[in-house]
């Protein structure tokens, strides 16, 4: 009877570091005061994965714009839209609650470009860019008005990335929010979409690259990228409302394959330190993957 072999020293070290990473994330969560934190990560370089509360549902906030981006490019892939197809910019939408009209307040969008085009037309690729890079809610609802939520959900299903994503309505639909009808995501759900995008498997390598280019244009960089070294590039999408703060993206470091990271957090409305918490978790994961110190 052969003796049970002891694990190789390298394996022991990996398990030890992973345990340390999990403990470090738990410590960050405890110290942050967050109500809940979920982290999902997949590293293309090492094949390592991390799933902490990965299947817990969170209000999606603006991270739902990543699945919507996928839906827009599905329409482009089907030939129903062209990147330069024009869309009437109109600030009038119907709530999923009794079709009551509502508008997106211009003050809620950080970029006035789309609001300034009311009455005119903008191209699909322009709207997609504003939807992601400055998180324009008006651009989001306009695109969703063209393609429809059902088409987005069908796309997610066809690509086998529907698990962990619930798209139920446009954004800024306050009546729906009050009725508890919200878009929801899990960290693992968003991870699956971003892995597919980063691997060039969404429709075609060319279309995947175009979506990644848009995500690279992200202007809100207080989360995942904030404490990464200068050479890091992050293609990502943030999301924040009074009770959640999220960041989900693909991290590109020099001389290694990228890793996909999703950090979802839930808070009391009065809590502070949200971006700092996401940045700290991102930094900890970075150190873990680059063999730096995990416990600071």
């Amino acid at each position, binding site marked *: 009877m052969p003796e049970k072999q002891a694990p190789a020293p390298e394996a022991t070290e990996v398990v030890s570091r992973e345990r340390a990473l999990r403990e470090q994330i738990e410590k960050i969560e405890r110290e942050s005061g967050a109500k809940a934190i979920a982290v999902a990560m997949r590293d293309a370089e090492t094949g390592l994965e991390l799933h902490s509360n990965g299947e817990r549902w969170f209000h999606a906030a603006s991270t739902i714009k990543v699945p919507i981006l996928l839906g827009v490019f599905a329409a482009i892939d089907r030939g129903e839209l062209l990147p330069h197809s024009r*869309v*009437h910019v109109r*600030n*009038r939408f119907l709530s999923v609650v009794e079709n009551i009209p509502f508008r997106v307040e211009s003050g809620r969008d950080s970029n006035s470009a789309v609001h300034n085009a009311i*009455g*005119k*037309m903008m191209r699909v690729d322009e709207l997609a860019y504003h939807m992601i890079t400055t998180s324009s809610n008006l651009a989001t609802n306009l695109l969703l008005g063209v393609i429809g939520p059902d088409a987005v959900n069908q796309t997610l299903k066809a690509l086998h990335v529907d698990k962990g994503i619930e798209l139920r309505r446009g954004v800024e639909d306050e009546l729906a929010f009050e009725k508890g009808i919200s878009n929801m995501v899990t960290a693992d759900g968003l991870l699956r979409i971003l892995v597919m995008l980063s691997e060039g498997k969404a429709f075609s390598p060319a279309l995947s690259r175009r979506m990644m280019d848009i995500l690279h244009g992200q202007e809100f960089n207080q989360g995942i990228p904030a404490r990464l070294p200068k050479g890091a590039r992050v293609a990502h999408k943030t999301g924040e409302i009074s009770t959640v703060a999220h960041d989900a993206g693909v991290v590109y470091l020099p001389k290694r394959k990228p890793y996909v990271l999703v950090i979802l957090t839930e808070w009391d409305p009065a809590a502070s330190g949200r971006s700092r918490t996401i940045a700290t978790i991102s930094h900890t994961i970075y150190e873990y993957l680059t063999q730096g110190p995990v416990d600071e």
Partner: protein
Amino acid sequence: MTDAARFVDAGPTESPIFPLRVVDGLALPAEYRKALRPGEEWKDAGGSPRQLPRYFYEIPSWDSAMKIELASHFLLWEFIQVDVREAPPLRTFPRYVPCAITLLAVCLERFRDAVGTLVHISANGGYRSPSHRFSKNATLHAWGTAANIYRIGDTYLDNRSAIERFSLIARETLPGIWTRPYGTPSGFAEDHLHLDLGYVLSVPRDVKS
């Protein structure tokens, strides 16, 4: 179908100001007939049948639409801005607009004189075909006799005060004009001023119908 058969009369093309040719919609290729539905009946919201326009001006290019004046302060392009919801054949050139579009332009010119500043027609707010995804219930936009105005000068018409103020000016200036009342239900408008001339069919005098 040859071009010669499709065009009703070549005379107006001699005009350097208004060089558009009149086209019989029934003689257009099938994909255009399907989208434009020339001469067909279409029921309005009350169930009354309305006859769609049969005769159209043919616009050869965007460049020409940018140059052709329908009135002193209204160029043709302002009336044909449609988005991705328009039927695909009607999103590329040549494009077609009902001949009554010139009447609308004259009315808007008079309205512009009354308000004393720029009048902006919205995208999808001039002519749009009966096949446009926004077109329903025999919308007057498919007759080329309706305009959605979202901005006058620096004033956005997105509130009751602005819409009702300019609506009153339109009704006082343009006898017989109809303006959509302010409000959110179907048949009302709360983010633009809709005005229209009714179901006007313009048949150029050279047409033998």
